[in-house]
């Protein structure tokens, strides 16, 4: 780690020196590669400083949400025309099925959004929808990994970890990258989704749970009385400070002493940020905090806003828990898209719309990015026997929709198109690498320059791919 370049990119918040010290002993080998990529040229113009990702576990049907396909209604009940048998997960291809929701043009922008998201639809003018996403995997976990890390297998750092690595922290007593799983459970792939991979451990996503131990080991258990705890800290400090007298130049030791100071700060700041009781009632209502259906989503969206107000760089909110289950607890409408998507959407529609509105009214949306992603879309044809229109849809990685909102984007537009029936991305196709390159660009990071050496390769979030989607930029 080169101190000079590091200091250039931690201007805010945390005493740069302290963090520099923490970093200086990360022997990431990298003075000759990993971090030397960082200089002023990496962040010519930083449009956003922080991001919230609403990460849908499973596949949200784009033809039922953001990708209006009138032709699909006309072709309802027909067989899909294709030279080759479509590649889907379960290999049982039913007849085409029209959307189960009505689409309407929304707000001034006239974006098409279906009735599945009535609250979000009212924020249409703030959304930048990409309707031409495509992915390489039709299996849940690899597809979820792809959306987070650009790679289909375990072991690669996710977007949040890369942002932490690239930009450092603005808060000295909160983690850089916070993960808020759905209370329905942990998504498929579990902690591998927010793993730091081969990046240093500090870039790992930190799960904040509700309750007392929001972070593991934040406080000792009840067996340790407060005064004994205070004594232990004093003694730790004494032992370390004495060593420092003999070794004033020991950077590692400085870092350790500092880490205990920051730990103490965290014990105050984490409970403070999680205390939603300070929020006024109109805010609670805006997010839907007191409604049983929306309370979990509302709590996490509101917490996300509070976290980013305090300098957290990246917050990942999962929508959907483990795969399968009865009823399914993620966006996975194999049996019935209506039942499944209604259940899932009503848990997050109001909270996410509330979050957008709240960020906007506070002026935060100007330099914040909100990402709304899914593993893949769903097929325009139903899943089931080939002579029927069944109620469910299978995985469709060939075409699907996501949206972004916030700084540096053109709001109220839809970019890219799928084919007539919404099966495959057809125009202005966008891959996850392109998506990630664009997000990094909005943060002022050149996706080709942010690298970390691991086992023979200077790894990037975008592997060897990635084109910035310039057409959606402001």
């Amino acid at each position, binding site marked *: 780690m080169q101190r000079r370049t590091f200091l250039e990119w931690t201007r805010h918040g945390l005493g740069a020196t302290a963090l520099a010290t923490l970093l200086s002993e990360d022997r990431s080998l990298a003075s000759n590669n990993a971090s030397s990529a960082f200089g002023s040229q990496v962040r010519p113009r930083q449009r956003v400083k922080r991001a919230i990702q609403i990460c849908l576990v499973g596949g949200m049907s784009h033809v039922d949400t953001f990708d209006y396909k009138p032709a699909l209604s006309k072709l309802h009940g027909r067989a899909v025309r294709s030279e080759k048998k479509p590649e889907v997960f379960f290999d049982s291809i039913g007849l085409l099925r029209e959307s189960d929701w009505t689409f309407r043009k929304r707000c001034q922008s006239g974006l098409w959004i279906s009735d599945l998201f009535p609250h979000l639809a009212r924020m249409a003018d703030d959304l930048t929808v990409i309707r031409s996403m495509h992915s390489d995997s039709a299996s849940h*976990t690899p597809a979820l990994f792809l959306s987070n890390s650009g790679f289909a297998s375990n072991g690669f750092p996710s977007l949040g970890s890369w942002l932490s690595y690239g930009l450092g922290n603005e808060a000295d007593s909160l983690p850089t990258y916070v993960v808020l799983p759905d209370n329905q459970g942990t998504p498929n792939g579990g902690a591998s989704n927010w793993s730091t991979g081969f990046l240093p451990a500090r870039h790992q996503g930190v799960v904040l749970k509700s309750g007392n131990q929001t972070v593991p080991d934040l406080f000792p258990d009840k067996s340790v009385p407060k005064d004994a705890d205070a004594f232990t800290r004093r003694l730790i400090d004494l032992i370390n400070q004495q060593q420092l007298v003999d070794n004033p130049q020991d950077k590692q030791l400085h870092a350790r002493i500092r880490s205990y100071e920051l730990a103490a700060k*965290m014990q105050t700041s984490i409970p403070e940020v999680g205390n939603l009781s300070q929020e006024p009632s109109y805010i609670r209502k805006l997010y839907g905090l007191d409604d049983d259906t929306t309370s979990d989503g509302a709590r996490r969206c509101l917490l996300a806003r509070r976290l980013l107000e305090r300098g957290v760089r990246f917050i990942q909110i999962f929508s959907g828990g483990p795969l399968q289950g009865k009823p399914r607890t993620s966006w996975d409408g194999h049996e019935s898209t209506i039942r499944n998507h209604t259940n899932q959407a009503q848990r997050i529609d109001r909270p996410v719309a509330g979050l957008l509105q709240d960020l906007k009214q506070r002026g935060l949306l100007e330099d914040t990015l909100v990402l709304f992603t899914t593993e893949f879309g769903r097929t325009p044809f139903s899943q089931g026997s080939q002579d029927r229109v069944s109620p469910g849809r299978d995985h469709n990685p060939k075409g699907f929709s996501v949206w972004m909102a916030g700084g540096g984007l053109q709001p109220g537009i839809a970019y890219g198109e799928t084919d007539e029936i919404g099966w495959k991305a057809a125009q202005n196709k966008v891959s996850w690498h392109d998506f990630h390159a664009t997000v990094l660009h909005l943060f002022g990071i050149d996706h080709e320059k942010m690298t970390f050496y691991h086992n023979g390769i200077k790894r990037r979030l975008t592997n060897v791919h990635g084109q910035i989607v310039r057409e959606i930029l402001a």
Partner: protein
Amino acid sequence: MLAISHNSVWLIFAMAVANHALQSATVVFGAEAEEHFDRVVAPLLARRCLGCHSQETAKGGLDLSRRESVLRGGDSGQIYMPAHLTESRLWQRVVNGEMPPEQPLEENELMLFRKWLAAGLPWGSDPINPFLATNAQRAGYNWWSLQPLRDPKLPDVEQVAWSNSNDLDRFILRKLESQGLQPSPPADPPTLVRRVYFDLIGLPPDPQVTEQFTTNPSPAAWQALVDQLLNSPAYGERWGRHWLDVARFGESDGFEENQARPHAWPYRDWVIQALNDDLPYDTFAKMQIAGDLIDPGWDGMAAAGFMVAGIHNTLLGASDTMQRQGRQDELEELIGTLSQTFLGLTANCARCHDHKFDPISTREYYQLVAAVAGVTHGTRELAENESPSTLFTVVAQAAPAVQIHVRGSVNDLGDIVPAGGIAAIQDVSANFGLATDAPEATRRLKLADWIASPQNPLFLRTIVNRIWHHHFGNGLVKTPNDLGFNGGVPSHPDLLDWLSIQFRNDGLRMKSLHRRIVTSNTYQQASALRPEALQLDTDNDWLWRYSPRRIEAEVLRDSILQISGALNPQRGGPGFMDVEKTPLNCCNYYIPIDPVGEQFNRRTIYRFSPRGASNALLDTFDCPDSATAAPRRNVTTTPLQALSLMNNAFVIRMAKQFSERVIRESGENVGTQVRYAWMLALGRLPSASEEKLAIAGTRQHGLNAVCRAIFNANAFVIID
């Protein structure tokens, strides 16, 4: 800068040779000229020009790897005009020292280049093989790590006395002297004992051992101590962990289903035992590649677990393409692990295109694939000692004929290739002499012989560098899994080769290499910072001191257990579970729990280690998730790490056990208790102020509050 005089004799000579009308791309030059080009000119171009000016990366649209494109020129037009040779831009840019930038051609190179231009660009192989020579962008056949081992002369040094007991020291001292650095004096005996204990067995010494050595710190006593540690079964547990990091050993499949592998532990046990038995390294490697064929009993089957220790996607889509794609992904994972582990090469990068940085072709990648194409994941039943046992290992299938996948696509298949190796590695033949339909066993055994040949220079350099890395915190090459172009260059190339040759002469015994290293003066230096040396060499690349190191997550946990008198010495067998497996339909989650009981107090290497199972204490101390190989662990210091070491329930429980042990063994006197606790954990007595505060605290809060602080002391987690 070169000072080239335009009227120098050779130039006039060349001008005379320059003839006319050489614009045609199809000129025939004759076998001799072609041979000369391939042997002399092409390597020059490859070394000096093709890094920027070859096919895919042709800067300025100029591709110098093909004759036709040289004649055509680049984006800015023609560069070669035979009639006006001295005005040709190809010549002008080079002779003026503008190209190649920064390092213009040497005079003899320039001469060669000029003659070649003047002769009308006689050409041989077209395009030029980019592997011919190393240049600024990539490694060629002449890359250092691919060359045969050299047997370097022992270097001459000034301070003979420092280096005359162990020749290793002469190599280090030579570099130090040439850098104007002095070695550090030896560390004091208690520090040395602590260092070598953590290094060789991953556990702290008993105070008695420290005391004994401190009273008689003779070379003979040091030798005896080292031998005792190397003969301890704890050695295999410590160094086995290093190996398992490289072998990306984990006990679940990863990916979606993430099924547990309850029968994967025999591989872990085999590694520990093999290290304790000091198995020669070639046997150690061969058994892991093909143990199921070499020795189809328990040992061989367990050893072959290496091949399938990585992540495995068990839930592929139903379509044929997805199935075949999934299989190719598995094979890439395997080739990557094999080549990085044993050869320090990233052959996996050649799956879709020739390796961008090292001389490994896609054809060679598929030759390696052909050698392992029958390897699949599975369990096998063995009747061992009359009772059937199950282990997770290679289940060999009939190996198919393997075709090159053009650009990595499963739908664009090229030539069928036989099993074979990488030609760039010298002293071993990449040609296995096999037909494309050779049986699975033959292919894999040939691969094992090629990789693990004592003649294979990369095989030896890679392991010697790994072992050095673990002793010093940095390898002689700082990237243990990559001795290719993207990796580091060796700080002491002669030493690396010399050690490799000694290692081979010692029968490829790792313990002899450990002995050679830890008995050196280099290893026994003090770690204290010396300002004058720090200024010259901040990172201690030249080893003027011993670099202090933070202990790894597992060593931390094991040491806490040992000091608390709670370490359960049970070795081998299924791991203890500190996670709760929660299956949910197809998927498995591993939720961390904190189980209490002796059976959970075993060394951490015996922890059941599924992927994606987080453990706050281990994670914050940079314990990798084993999804990919971790040849070199990160070392970070974070507030979350501090919180875990202070507040983790395990740590608090052990602080209590530690205090109980101290009281049990040292009696009622609080001062004695405090001093004894310091000795046990830190190998030294407390200072006056430490003792004063600790005694007061013990009286007020109990000794466990003191013990908890000791676990958190910097001195506890650092080996110096």
